[in-house]
């Protein structure tokens, strides 16, 4: 290997190393950004706009700006989600949760819809079961022949009513 080739080889290695270092720092920044976005989506903005922190776009909202900055710093320090959450709750109270935590009283909020659905489904199934009637055996031909014009007309009216729409 000539000197020139060796120099070129080291140059390529150096370039690759520096570019991968640059890329990795960019990726790290992007990962941190994504993580901040993901965690920020779990908090409410405290400017009383009733929006999720990462979605608050109140013109001139200083609250969300400072909260997001605080969040970015915590993410940059490598704090865990639990640590960040407890920090925010300590500062702003439980109002800061965008969704109730899955513990304590808040479990009620999470479990209620499922309970409604289960109880409702049971109720509907019970109602259907209760309302189901035993179907009479199919009428015989002779019985059909014996039907009066009045009954036939009533049956026709009912069929029309039940099948029109």
């Amino acid at each position: 290997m000539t000197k020139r080739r060796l120099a070129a080889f080291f140059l390529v290695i150096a370039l690759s190393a520096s570019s991968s270092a640059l890329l990795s720092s960019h990726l790290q920044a992007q990962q941190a950004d994504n993580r901040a976005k993901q965690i920020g989506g779990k908090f409410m903005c405290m400017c009383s706009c009733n929006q999720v922190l990462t979605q608050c776009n109140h013109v001139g909202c200083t609250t969300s700006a400072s909260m997001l900055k605080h969040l970015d710093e915590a993410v940059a320090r490598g704090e865990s989600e639990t640590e960040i959450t407890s920090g925010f709750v300590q500062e702003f109270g439980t109002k800061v949760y965008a969704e109730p935590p899955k513990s304590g009283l808040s479990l009620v909020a999470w479990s209620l819809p499922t309970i409604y659905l289960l109880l409702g489904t049971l109720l509907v199934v019970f109602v259907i079961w209760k309302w189901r009637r035993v179907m009479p055996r199919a009428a015989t031909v002779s019985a059909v022949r014996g039907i009066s014009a009045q009954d036939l007309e009533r049956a026709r009216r009912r069929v029309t009513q039940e099948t029109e729409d």
Partner: protein
Amino acid sequence: MDVFGSFALLLAFLCAGYAFVGGIFAIRTRHPLLVKSARQAGIATCGLIFLATASLVYLFFSDSYWVSYVVAHSNRDLATFYKIAALWSGQEGSLLFWSFLLAIYVFSVLLVYRNKNGELMPYVGVVLAGVQIFFLTLNNFVASPFKVLASTGANGTLEIFTRADGNGLTPLLQYPEMVIHPPNLYSGYTGFTIPFAFALGALLARYPGEKWIHLTRKWTMIAWCFQTMGILLGAHWAYAVLGWGGYWGWDPVENASLLPWLTGTAFLHSVMMQEKRGMMKVWNVWLVFTTFMLCILGTLLTRSGVVSSVHAFAQSSIGNYFVGFLLLIFAVCFVAYLKNRDYLKSENQLDSMVSRESSFLFNNLILLVSCIAVLSGTLFPVFSEWFSGSRISVGAPFFNKVNVPIGLLLLFLTGVGPLLAWRKTSTDSLKRNFGWPLVIGLLAGVVFFALGLREFFSLVCLILCVFVTSTIGMEFFRGARVIRSRSGASFLASAVDLTMRNTRRYGGYIVHMGMVLIFVGLAGAAFNRDAQKDMQPGSTLQIGGYKLLLQGFDSKVEKNYTSERMIVEVWRDNKPLMMLYPERRFFQTNEQSGTMVAIYSTLREDLYVVYAGQNPETQAPVVHAYLNPLVKWIWLGGLVVVLGTLVTLLPNRRAVLVLSGAPERAAQPASAQTLAPSVALREGHD
């Protein structure tokens, strides 16, 4: 004019009182003159409310800055267009506007049925007058929009004074949709008073049969349609004005509008069980009661400050009146039900689990579960504060997690329900109706998956959308094919003919199709992207396939505000596509700012660009861009829903028997057939 308005409101209150008390006496004595006078008092009440509302509008247009409400919500430079919107922008005016819309409904009902349903109408009139009395009490004694500015003079007397100009309208409301969104929503809220009055009236009068349901069907459809439009226009307003990139934030006030819509939708479906099979009478009556009570609850949430919301009116004690009214309504409904429950006895019989009836039961279950889940989530912060002393917020992530699966179940039933037969659906019918739609839906799923769609709920949603579209399409196809084979008309003409022959059924399908389009739009939300950047002229921002090039800024001075505009050139595939102008407006009168979002909307996606202000550290202008797929489908879906609802309101075109003279046939022997007049079949409207 303020005195005239106040006087008209006071007279309206007295007339409503007479309509209520006189109506009760009329019911007891059955004296025709008393019945007539109570009805006419009801009509006079409405006329007086119209006059009072016209007075307030006049006060806005004439810049009467001695009236407190006009000062608070208008200014001289406010565009004429928005002076109308100022009517409902505050607590007092919006309550008068509520009374006004209710008066339109009451006036129409009293006029349309003035010579009909003599047994029922006095009861309906009393209920309507009762509701009007409540709102007129608020208009007159609690939140009068005609209060004037007054101060105590040197000699201790009150002196009216005039301000040079008003405070102006909130910037967020200075947007064209704000002129049409609240009237639509309020028309929905107030419209549900009519089915409520008929249901309660029929229960009190023990009015026989299902006639009250036939009488109120169109009124309910109209109220439901307005509520739907109101909700969607509100969503569009939030999307285009608030600048957070979304259209539905599960805000308590948004939720409040959704609650009666959900129960109203449940009622529109379950009522068919009563019409067709005489079933579920108790359920239907309570669904109407609940829908009306939820309208009042929604108003309570918006106006009392119980829950925090950007949309809410200022915190006030007015909520106590609504709580009292709500309790009173519940007590009246409950007592009326207890006393007359035998009237609601019905023959509840089902032939099969797989039937239209069962699908309606499940449809009602899902809608009600969604309603209760939204209600409990909305009120949970209040309850958590009561029980634990600390308020726990319930935001959009919670509601999305809870309601997305429920919505998908509902979408599934939208496809399945209409194709199930009444009483019992045979296996053959199931295969015939659902075979192809299932295959098409699954195939679509495979295609979506192959195209890289991996988001579970969105994938399921889109598969269901294809499935439901197929079921609806096949219904139209089968029916139109039969008509085409008989008439020889084109397929489209046959489909239109089919729709016009049974507007309720096929109009319903069109409404369902609109809901499918809305769900397609909602499915896109999982793929929203956004990017934010500090930008200087010449710098670019890449989002998806678009490149935003900031060309510069300009500013303009309008009558009511000054505006700073970003000039953004949009590039796609290395070609300039269009210019966008997101702007920030500053309203001098009330010293508030607002955004105007710039949107490039296509069926595929919306490019949504917000001028998000200045970076507090660098003072550089910030652009926040969003790429929101399929949003346009939501607004298109809304239009289709409205179109479908209008179709359901049309009368059916049906085959009518027309008698005509028979041509003489000399050689034909006399028979029963020739003696009877011949019958010609002709198409016509009923």
